[in-house]
């Protein structure tokens, strides 16, 4: 591998996610995308770094803020975009939208819009793996806001008690909608909570994709080799509003600007340039590739079809297979 190849790959991944979501924001203004749209902009290093640590047959459980995870996990941007357009060609046939991306081929288990709701599910996936002696890792992403939910507590305890192969990834972006961490938790050191379940836990700079990857690899390997559940607190920040309806009364412009100084993409790009591992042409090329990929995704979505209304009541129950 040439110097910096892997880093360039990570940069590329993050850039894909960033540009994809910037386009989503535009498309939301154009009313191509509707409903709730939660952007991950600023947090790309987390999903990108963690996914590097996973194997194809590992499982991923995410939240409503999951475009980045879906792309980093290898889902096709066209299929994801089509989902957000509500098209039949979308990963969930347009039934789910932005908050409910699913993909069985990459074991991407959603896309859950109930805060904390994915945690017990991840525990169960881990339980199935353990009962079948499979060395797979189930990785579950959730925000620091979810930590206050009872489901978090119950899921953490169960995973630790039963020693299940689950990697808990807490994306601490400091806010749950408009509620700052210190107004939501009496103890703001989230890793201390993991300790209260006897679960190994590390704080990670979630703006540094290499640090994230490194921590995730170590944690995932430990989980995979029977070390029981692990917990990562990934400290990050969302630049954009919580969703498209948020007046952002709860934080200052300055705070946002300050975090942007640590932008995961810009930081890695500068690092690579400083290390002479990224030329201007390479960067421009990367941007171009990404833009083309996204253009294609949008075209794919645009060209997609609306599901027939006659199919409305399908997928409530499974359909009989075979003759």
């Amino acid at each position, binding site marked *: 591998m040439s110097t910096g190849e892997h880093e360039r790959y990570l940069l590329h991944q993050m850039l894909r996610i960033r540009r994809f979501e910037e386009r989503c924001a535009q498309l939301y203004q154009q009313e191509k995308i*509707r*409903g*709730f749209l939660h952007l991950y902009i600023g947090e790309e290093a987390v999903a990108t770094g963690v996914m590097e640590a996973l194997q194809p047959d590992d499982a991923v459980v995410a939240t409503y803020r999951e475009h980045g995870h879906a792309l980093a996990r290898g889902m096709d941007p066209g299929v994801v975009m089509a989902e957000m357009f*509500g*098209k039949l060609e979308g990963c*969930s046939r*347009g*039934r*789910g*939208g932005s*908050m*409910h991306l699913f993909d069985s081929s990459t074991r991407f288990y959603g896309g*859950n*819009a*109930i*805060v*904390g*709701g994915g945690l017990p599910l991840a525990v169960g996936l881990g339980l199935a793996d353990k009962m079948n002696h499979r060395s797979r890792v189930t990785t579950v992403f959730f925000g620091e*806001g*979810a930590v*206050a*939910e*009872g*489901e978090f507590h119950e899921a953490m305890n169960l995973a630790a008690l039963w020693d299940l192969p689950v990697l808990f990834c807490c994306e601490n972006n400091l806010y*749950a*909608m*408009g*509620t*700052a961490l210190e*107004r*939501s*938790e009496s103890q703001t050191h989230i890793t201390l909570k993991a300790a209260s379940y006897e679960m190994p836990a590390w704080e990670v700079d979630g703006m540094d994709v290499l640090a994230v990857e490194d921590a995730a690899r170590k944690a995932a390997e430990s989980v995979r080799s029977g070390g029981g559940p692990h917990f990562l607190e990934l400290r990050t920040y969302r630049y954009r509003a919580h969703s498209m309806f*948020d*007046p952002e*009364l*709860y934080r200052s412009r300055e705070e946002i600007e300050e975090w942007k100084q640590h932008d995961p993409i810009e930081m890695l790009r500068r690092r690579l340039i400083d290390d002479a591992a990224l030329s201007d042409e390479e960067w421009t090329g990367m941007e171009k590739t990404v833009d083309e990929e996204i253009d294609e995704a949008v075209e794919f979505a645009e060209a997609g079809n*609306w*599901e027939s*209304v006659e199919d*409305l*009541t399908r*997928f*409530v129950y499974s359909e009989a297979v075979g003759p």
Partner: protein
Amino acid sequence: MTQLMTDRETMTYREAMREAMSEAMREDERVFLMGEDVGRYGGCYAVSKGMLEEFGPERVRDTPLSESAFVGAGIGAALGGMRPIVEVMTVNFSLLALDQIVNTAALYLHMSGGQFNVPLVVRMATGAGRQLAAQHSHSLEGWYAHVPGLKVLAPGTIEDARWMLKPALEDPDPVIVFEHAGLYNMEGELPDSRDGADITSAKVRRRGDDVSLITYGGSLPKTLEAAAELEKDGISADVLDLRVLRPLDRTAILETVVRTHRVVVIDEGWKTGGISAEIAALIAEEAIWELDAPIGRVCSAEVPIPYARHMEEAALPQVPNVVAVARRLVGG
């Protein structure tokens, strides 16, 4: 004297609800609002916007994401002499608080042999129609209306949004208030009918003789539209707004049946086992010989609400469905 918005002729449903809360908090120190993002964020549907500034963070209290605990804390605070308004963002998340609402709030007076009543108001947004997909589109009013010990309100007009909260807060027992999210932007005049506001009666929103359209909440505007459509065909529809889902105003329901002899129930809840079922059952028990046609129900399809707009529209009750069923009953 209460302060009213008098510089404008109209207000939105959202503003009406905000005015109602603010007025209650001005008049009664025991009243406070608590819930996720009611303060700094201004409320997920901006209902409480500006209230933090007026009342401060103790009385407009942001909570962590802990539906069970903060609803339960509302019960405890009510027992401790306060008059809490607990906002659960939406009915979808209220599933996490159901144990407290059903096993504690609803049963407490009874289990204690009448010693402890729970003067609590729980508000929540409900309903679909904004492409929020399956987990954010429930209409579970019917579940709540099934539970003895609860009172369940569904203001469907600006007037009711403005005036129903006060009697709800004065009620000694737990009251659940459903606000259809699609109504918040509805704008209209506010009649100063506060004295007439009750939390016991259904109201006829339009008089008619040919068919009764029974509905509530988010389906009320659609139903009124359908009634206007029907008028064009010369069918005069009686529109009954239930307003109160528990206890039901049986008299009003039976009266409209007697008036028109034909009934369509319109409800955004899933059809099977929803509120619409109880209305139909009540009539089948108590006024069956009054009927000149089978009872019709226009409800949500039996499917989780899909994201795609055309699919969501197809899943929900719409004006043409109401019109079609009403026509069939009148014609048949």
